[in-house]
């Protein structure tokens, strides 16, 4: 392990994030090369969490853009604050009258008004959305573009333009250049294929579910009140559940929720009653729950399997 990457690992650990060698290496590289980093992986393995921890480590302000279907420039980049413009016009009416009072012709009045229009299209009335905010921020910034796979292909193309030279042109104002180059982290849950062009520009990191030892360390770090033996049992069960063919496998964040629930209920061991009470924290689908029950109570297994066979 390199000195430089192990220091990344330590710094992340100080932020309560346990990073594998792979994660540390790639983060280090992204930082050195000044490249955007694309993080993929199943939901809830700590992709967003990693970005937050990294912003704390590098002392960068975190600006987050949550993507969704239908997200467009107006909501991601900037918008003119129309209501504020109107309000100002109303309030400044007297002053406007005064400025325009000695204009003789209509044309002259229009010219004079035009020479003042910069006031109304200045940064004062610009509603900054996350992308513009990240570009114009004076402080070092970490721009987190979350769940990019949920946005549309068009938005992705637009994003490419912004990410490649960190400048934005606003017709009324001209081109705004980034005051500092933000670190960019994109996350994706892999629900759709991202464009080749976007992937080409980014470094790539795939975070998978942690191994048993890693997950145990995470649980112990985040839920310190948990008895070691119980934590071990709980994590082992979660790892076993992930091997089942579930609609949604339990994520790390769900493991943590569950661990907290167990601590709150003051559970001593994973007995049937505790499981019945808390398994819904871990599994959110009825079918998944039933499968898990079958795994935990092999007694009922035969009956259920019989049912399945006779149906098909």
């Amino acid at each position, binding site marked *: 392990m390199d000195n*430089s990457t192990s220091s990344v690992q330590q710094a992340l650990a100080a932020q309560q994030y346990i990073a594998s060698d792979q994660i540390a290496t790639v983060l280090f590289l992204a930082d050195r090369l000044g490249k955007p980093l694309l993080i993929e992986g199943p939901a809830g393995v700590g992709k967003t969490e990693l970005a937050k921890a990294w912003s704390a480590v590098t002392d960068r302000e975190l600006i987050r853009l949550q993507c969704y279907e239908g997200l467009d420039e107006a909501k991601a980049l900037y918008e003119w604050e129309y209501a504020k413009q109107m309000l100002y016009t109303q309030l400044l009416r007297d002053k406007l009258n005064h400025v325009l009072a000695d204009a003789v012709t209509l044309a002259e009045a229009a010219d004079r008004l035009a020479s003042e229009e910069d006031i109304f299209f200045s940064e004062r009335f610009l509603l900054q959305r996350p992308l513009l905010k990240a570009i114009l921020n004076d402080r070092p910034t970490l721009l987190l573009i979350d769940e990019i796979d949920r946005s*549309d292909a068009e938005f992705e193309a637009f994003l490419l333009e912004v990410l490649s030279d960190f400048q934005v042109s606003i017709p009324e104002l001209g081109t705004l250049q980034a005051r500092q180059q933000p670190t960019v982290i994109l996350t994706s849950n892999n629900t759709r294929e991202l464009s080749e062009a976007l992937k080409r520009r980014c470094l790539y990191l795939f975070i998978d579910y942690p191994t048993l030892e890693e997950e145990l360390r995470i649980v112990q770090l985040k839920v310190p009140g948990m008895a070691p033996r119980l934590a071990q049992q709980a994590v082992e069960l979660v790892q076993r559940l992930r091997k089942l063919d579930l609609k949604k496998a339990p994520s790390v964040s769900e493991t943590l929720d569950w661990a907290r629930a167990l601590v709150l209920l003051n559970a001593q061991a994973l007995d049937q009653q505790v499981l019945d009470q808390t398994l819904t924290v871990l599994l959110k689908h009825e079918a998944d729950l039933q499968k898990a029950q079958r795994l935990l109570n092999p007694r009922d297994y035969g009956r259920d399997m019989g049912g399945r066979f006779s149906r098909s």
Partner: protein
Amino acid sequence: MERRIVEFIMGMRAAGVRISIAESEDCMKAVRELGIEDRGSFRETLRATLVKDVHDFPKFDELFPLYFGSGGPPMRSPSAGGLDQLRPEDMQALQQAIKQLRNRVQELIQRLLNGEQLSRQELERFAQQAGLQYADTMRDRLWIERRMQQLLGLDKLEQELQQLMRLLEQAGMAEDLREIIRQQVEDNAQAMREQIRQHVGAGLAERQAERYQQRRGSDLMHKPFNRLTEEEAEELRKQVRRLAAQLRSRAALRQRRANDGQIDVRRTMRVNLRYGGVPLELRYRRRHLKPRLVLICDVSTSMRPVAEFMLRLVYELQDQVSKTRSFAFIDTMHEISQDLSTSHASESIQEILYRIPPGHYNTDLGASLATFIHRYFDATDRRTTVIVLGDGRNNYNDPRLDLVDTIRARAKQVIWLTPEPQTMWGTGDSDMHLYAPRCDAVHEVSSLAQLIRAIDRLLV
């Protein structure tokens, strides 16, 4: 080292991973940052900069050790192996015993005892003799490895080693010393095998990369399905995913642009706030009419290649069609939707083709359509596009044209994709000329390019 990395990138491209020039440049920069001393982080560096898709990770994992192998574990020197415990007279006895072994193995055992690795020149010479230059694919790997081992005498080693042990026992050597010799020879033989294995693997990967460059000139997209070699088909299969992605984004864009004429008041108001509520820019309701597909595939021998690619495409495009139900037939109809909705494309398609094995002259579309109407007619409604993929060669069975009419009356449209050109319709057992006028459209799809065009027209 840079040269080796470039070769590796070429190897990855040959394996079907798309790597751009900009990415290889990034890779070089990153390597300069982190250096190559630490193998683990070097590996991460290459992977993070070159491989942007988790599905390509296995290929990376396969090729990386071939290009950046350590050249096998180092062999143990005689002193590390404990051979210095042998007194001079023991050494003499050992040399005597070795001389009684087979010629070929004498030199080998000598080498292994001394911990002498094969030099690069030697490796290349043996590989040449074993025929590495004629090998084409990774499948030849084992065979060449074995040939090289034979040339070196490694295949006879175990036998000869036992012989050696017997001879040494007769010469009165102590057991612990014999054990040291045996351990030294066996461990170093293992190291040598590993060295050979890596050399052959790397050589094959390089040859594959070279051939890939030569091959790219020919345009597989337009080559008819029935004239593809197995290798070319493999190449095309890799392409399908990329083409599907293109098709998908194009379709998504088209869907977004397509308006259905109704003004979306809420969005229009919001957009036009900046004009003081004067509606300058109109926003329309989106049309979310993804096609609903029923796919009827002929999977008899003649149709297999087309059917496979069709199924692959449909599998990749699942998010662009609101609902697909797929059926396959030879003499009767099978529903295969379930198979396509699970697991991995390749596996499920192989599974289907395996489950419905081709027979001899048993295609019966008429009977299959009857089964379809009898059992699965609920799959079609007025929004469904029914696609029949087949050559209409019916083995002189009843074509049941009335059933096509029944389906067409119920469905939005019936589209027929056939791999045969129009001139062939109606020849022999083909009923295509009878089916064609009953469909809304008939497209000829004999190559991947045509297949993609036909599907593109569906996804409006």
